[in-house]
């Protein structure tokens, strides 16, 4: 049976292939929002921060480090997804006259 390292390497290899293939196809229009989106996604390290902080036997040092980590990473999650949404929302095919109603 493969060890944890080997399994993680396998996953890493596959995920890198997926990443390279998919990112290469991202529209150049959206490279700026792409940066903030991947940034928000990599804030998934919140999982690690929660696990370490929530541990019953967490020392005070661990709790403090974990606390700061959660604050930092939650800022990223919240602002990252919100700002990306704000950006991509701006990309419209047909301009709408501000305040005008949309009829079809």
């Amino acid at each position, binding site marked *: 049976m493969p060890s944890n390292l080997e399994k993680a390497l396998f996953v890493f290899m596959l995920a890198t292939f997926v990443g390279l293939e998919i990112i290469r196809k991202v529209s*150049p229009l959206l490279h700026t929002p792409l*940066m*903030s989106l991947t940034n928000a996604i990599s804030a998934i390290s*919140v999982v690690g921060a929660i696990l370490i902080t929530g541990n019953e036997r967490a020392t005070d040092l661990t709790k403090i480090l974990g606390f*700061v980590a959660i604050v930092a*990473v*939650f800022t990223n999650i919240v602002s990252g997804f919100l700002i990306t949404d704000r950006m991509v929302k701006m990309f419209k095919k047909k301009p709408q006259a501000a305040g005008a109603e949309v009829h079809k």
Partner: protein
Amino acid sequence: MPHFVQYVYIISAAMFILSLKWMNSPASSRRGVAIGSLGMLLAVAGTLAGFPELMGGLSVHNWTWIVTAMVIGTVIGVPIAYIMPMTAVPQRTALSHACGALAAALVGAAEFYQSNQMHEPLAMFKMIALVIETLLGFLTFTGSLMAMGKLQEVLPQRPITYRGQNFVNFTLFSIAGVLAVRLVMVPSDTFLFPIFSGLALLFGVLLIIPIGGADMPTVIAILNSYAGLSACAMGFALGNNLLVVAGALDGSSGLILSIIMCKAMNRSFTNVLFGAFGQMQMKVGHTEQKPVRSASPEEAASILEAAQSVIIVPGYGLAVAQAQHKIRELYDALTRRGVNVKFGIHPVAGRMPGHMNVLLAEADIPYDRLVEMDEINGEFPQCDVALVIGANDVTNPAARTDKSSPIYGMPILDVDKAHTVMVIKRSMNPGFAGIDNPLYYMDKTLMLFGDAKAFVSEMVKELPVRAAA
């Protein structure tokens, strides 16, 4: 017992992948952001709910700490997202890399101390992952802060170099390497850890110091990669595949963006990182005054009005002047008069990949009018007027012809092939690369001196709304 968290993680990972996949077109991009945030929500909720399963039966403690931290994070995050002007996006990106990397590093440190205090043995493989996580995390933290400072112009923009720089860097790097090996071998040497972390923090600063402010966008993309890799290393340390996947996605995205930027500037990675190429060296040379033709807003407006097709080429100056909304008005005025207006977007126009697109989209310019370089270049010869607004290097024909030019070989927008060229900028000063632009001295070129926003709004005034039919 079904391991429900693990299934949640599989679904989250798939959602993250779909999220990035849907960034392949503006039409699906909102869906992409939505599914990405859903994936994040699932992962966080799943982790909290499935804590006992993940921690071998222990239930979550220190709820107050966790929830308080989340609330604080949210309270900080929401205003950042809504108040931040679009022109400050590069700085915000740097800041969030700093946050993400700091978190990764702190988690690594916490794990290290926790295991040591509990006298749990740290497997070598786990310790290697922790060392990489902390190194990349701390380095990216200070590096990103430096990059942000340079972009925000609180730090000096120019590259700082000194004699023996390479030697100092190399020595520090060797010491850090030795400490890392020692820590992997003897994890109980806890006193080494702060030294190691300090070196990593210092290293982030030293790496960025010799790089010019205008190269920061490439640096940010590279730091993006590092931040991703440090999340990945956390995944290895915790045996969590979701972290590995998200980190690898982030890492490959940073890598590809920096490759795109380097290609579009015809430079290599090494050149960006160690080149210290920038404003300084070039500013000598072309100082003789050559004659240029210039024009007033009225004249420029009447030329535009008479044209059938206009290609607008925006650049960094547009961001500086925040002229995007005025440009929208110009676009509307011309379109209403039946002029065919398109925008030619160079991959590294501005200070971030995709910078121009975001700004123009903010001003509600339809994205099918924003045309990429390779596509628009064929259209310049048939185009009546090329209107360059605050762009410089990306239109410099020397890149095509002058082998001695530092930007020789960089692909450019062929504005010089249009029938008439008009350039809005404040002076004859050079752009980022610090070199002169022969475009400005061509017979068909008119210089429109002034701030981009002010000048465009003058032009718009000359093109009043006529009664529509």
